[in-house]
């Protein structure tokens, strides 16, 4: 980074925003759909790790990274279906189920993933948007993975879907008023099953990004809580898909600040800078909260006690 000096910091933050944000983006968009149906899936951390493991395994075995992504999505959807199925039993608390699923997913991934810790799987393709530059820092920063573009396109697509499609309206109705949905003959249970499966699939894809692109290998320390953080990002984003996009970018960028400063020689407060994303989140939460109001935009059926 020495070549561009202090300019390395914004470049690294931009690179981080793009690279680190992708798993956040996928998991939070998936969770947003699940929460719009009136259910919280805290198990996405486990789903993310399972997605990372299975995506990596399939990519390594077949030689195709995209088959890996597909496998991760399928595994994620299955875990989502499992979560939804357990939640639709009587007197089951989705929060407890979510925590159990989180532990189950990570544990299962570690168990099944042992044989894949050493190998190197084919990497997901990336676009070289920085080819014009001679600076290696800018070139590596603007090497953008295809999944990032898909995630970025997905956010406005979800906004449109929630507003202008039959699926979107039914999803919002189930999440906002179960009584209304029942009175119109829709089954909240089925809609939530589908929404949780979708959320799981997205989290699986987010996981496959970790193991197939950045950092780009499978090991047990791969996820540092991205799954659970992304669930919180949905609340932070006020259940708005575009909000998820900005929140993921902000989180990714803030996370890259510490290493970037270290790279140019600012070594003091290294750990403090690493905690920056969390401090920024807390700060924004405090600023945007009010004791007099409930959260605007929250789906009416969403409750941690249900």
């Amino acid at each position, binding site marked *: 980074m020495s070549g561009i000096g202090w300019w390395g910091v914004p470049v690294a933050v931009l690179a981080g925003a793009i690279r680190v944000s992708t798993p956040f983006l996928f998991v939070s968009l998936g969770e947003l759909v699940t929460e719009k149906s009136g259910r919280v899936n805290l198990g996405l951390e486990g789903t993310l790790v399972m997605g990372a493991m299975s995506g990596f395994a399939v990519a390594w075995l077949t030689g195709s990274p995209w088959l890996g992504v597909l496998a991760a999505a399928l595994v994620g959807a299955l875990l989502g279906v499992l979560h939804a199925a357990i939640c639709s039993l009587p007197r089951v608390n989705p929060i407890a189920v979510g925590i159990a699923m989180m532990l189950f997913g990570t544990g299962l991934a570690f168990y099944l993933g042992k044989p894949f810790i050493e190998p190197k799987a084919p990497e997901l393709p990336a676009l070289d948007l920085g080819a014009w530059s001679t600076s290696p820092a800018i070139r590596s920063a603007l090497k953008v993975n295809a999944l990032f573009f898909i995630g970025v396109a997905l956010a406005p697509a979800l906004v449109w879907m929630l507003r202008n499609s*039959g699926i979107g309206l039914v999803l*919002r109705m189930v999440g906002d008023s179960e009584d209304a949905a029942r009175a119109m003959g829709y089954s909240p249970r089925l809609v939530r099953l589908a929404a949780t499966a979708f959320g799981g699939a997205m989290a699986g894809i987010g996981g496959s990004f970790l193991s197939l692109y950045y950092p780009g290998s499978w090991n047990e320390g791969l996820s540092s809580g991205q799954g659970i953080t992304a669930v919180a990002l949905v609340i932070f984003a006020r259940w708005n898909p575009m909000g998820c996009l900005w929140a993921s970018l902000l989180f990714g960028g803030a996370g890259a600040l510490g290493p970037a400063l270290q790279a140019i020689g600012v070594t003091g407060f290294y750990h403090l800078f690493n905690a920056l994303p969390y401090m920024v989140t807390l700060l924004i939460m405090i600023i945007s909260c009010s004791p*007099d109001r409930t959260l605007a935009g929250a789906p009416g059926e969403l409750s941690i006690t249900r």
Partner: protein
Amino acid sequence: MTDPSRAPSLEAIGMEKRFGVLAALDNVSMRVEAGSVHALLGENGAGKSTLVKCIMGYYRPDSGAVVLDGHEITIRSPRDAHLHGIGMVYQHFTLVPSMTVLENLVLARAPGPGRIDWEAERARLDTFLRTMPFTVRLTTPVAALAAGERQKAEILKQLYLDARFLILDEPTSVLTPQEADEMLSMLRSMARSGRITVLIITHKFREVLAFADAVTVLRRGRLAGGGSVGALGVEAMARLMVGEDRIADAASRSLRGPGAELVTVEALEAVDDSGATALRGVSLAVRAGEIVGIAGVSGNGQSALVEVLAGQRRARAGAVRIHGTPYHATRREMLAHRLAVLPEEPLRNAAVATMSVAANMALRRFDQPPIAHGMFLRAGPMRAEAETLIARYRVKTPSADAAIGTLSGGNVQRAVLGRELGREADVLIAANPVFGLDFAAVADIHAQIIAARNRGTAVLLVSEDLDELLELADRILVMADGRVVYETDAATADRMLIGQHMAGHA
């Protein structure tokens, strides 16, 4: 199938439904003539909603049949009912609050999963609305509609779904008298023209007399009687509804004039949960030995006012004084001023459902002797006090140790009222104190409130039921849009004038 362009007749024959040992419906039959307005009358728990839920397919009746236009039909789900042209407007609205009226109406038609052509949907709805006697703004979110508008939107939704047989569950409970009259006469004229048949669940005789052709009265799950409204008359209907149960005599109010001003509210402002302004400078005063009634359609700031006084919401501006000293709803002040609060939905707002009746009754005083002994609680005095209150306020509970959440609504209400009025109260704030209770419980609670007034308590009574206020209050204030817009002496009050102020036109 019935002729889809005509109002159908409907007959329920020998309907029975048991829940465990309880017979909710015991051999009930009812005939609703085509193109008529039929009232289904009965107290809470008489089986009215069980009967219509059986007709709508929410419940499977244990036996009995539903005959539509002379043909027996089988209804397994609300969807089946819709297919037969039977629609219901529920007391708890079934529109999605965060969506616009347009989105709700489109959703009701079960759109395909794909893209929705808003232009075409709007055009179709505009055509439909032109054939209707009333309209609702399509682009408004339902949450922003007044209750009367919401009710209209619900009715429009059913008609848009081609409902020819319309069931309405207590449709006027959230409306001003004018709105109620307007809506009922509109439904009646639609029935007269042979477009729909209407079945209204209600307990208001006034509406039955003015708008219904025939009536069926249920009592304790059985058919108590029925017939044409003209032939029956109020006396007979009331007797059918209540049976031989003795009603507590109307409490007599002492004529002693009101005393000193105990509660003063000055220019109070507050916001609601969504951040919208709920109170815009409310000022009022309540004197000792007087009941001040607050009338208004729900959602015009009454709940926020009660919440501020009960300590559940912060005021943004303004002041409350009790006994002339500033009041901030702290526990210490409530104790010092002997303030009693009976909020609406007491199980949610004033009780802990899983705790025992005795513990709930001690919530106000558990930190005072004799229940408190240093930092310990003494079960003996707590229990003894609870048992006294249970007896005095006729709370029906298996024991003082039963969880309060297992009691019926009326008994929770009595238990909380007993707790609040158990020691002499200087100030009582009550919000919709008899909502959803049966005749006997209503008379009982009204008598307790009047008795408190006669003992010199200053009572602030918030109610959505104007009849209740006219019966109990000494003075009536009307709230609309977060303000007190009208004040009248209850004895000389004009209900139509009050209604106009409730609606905000006056």
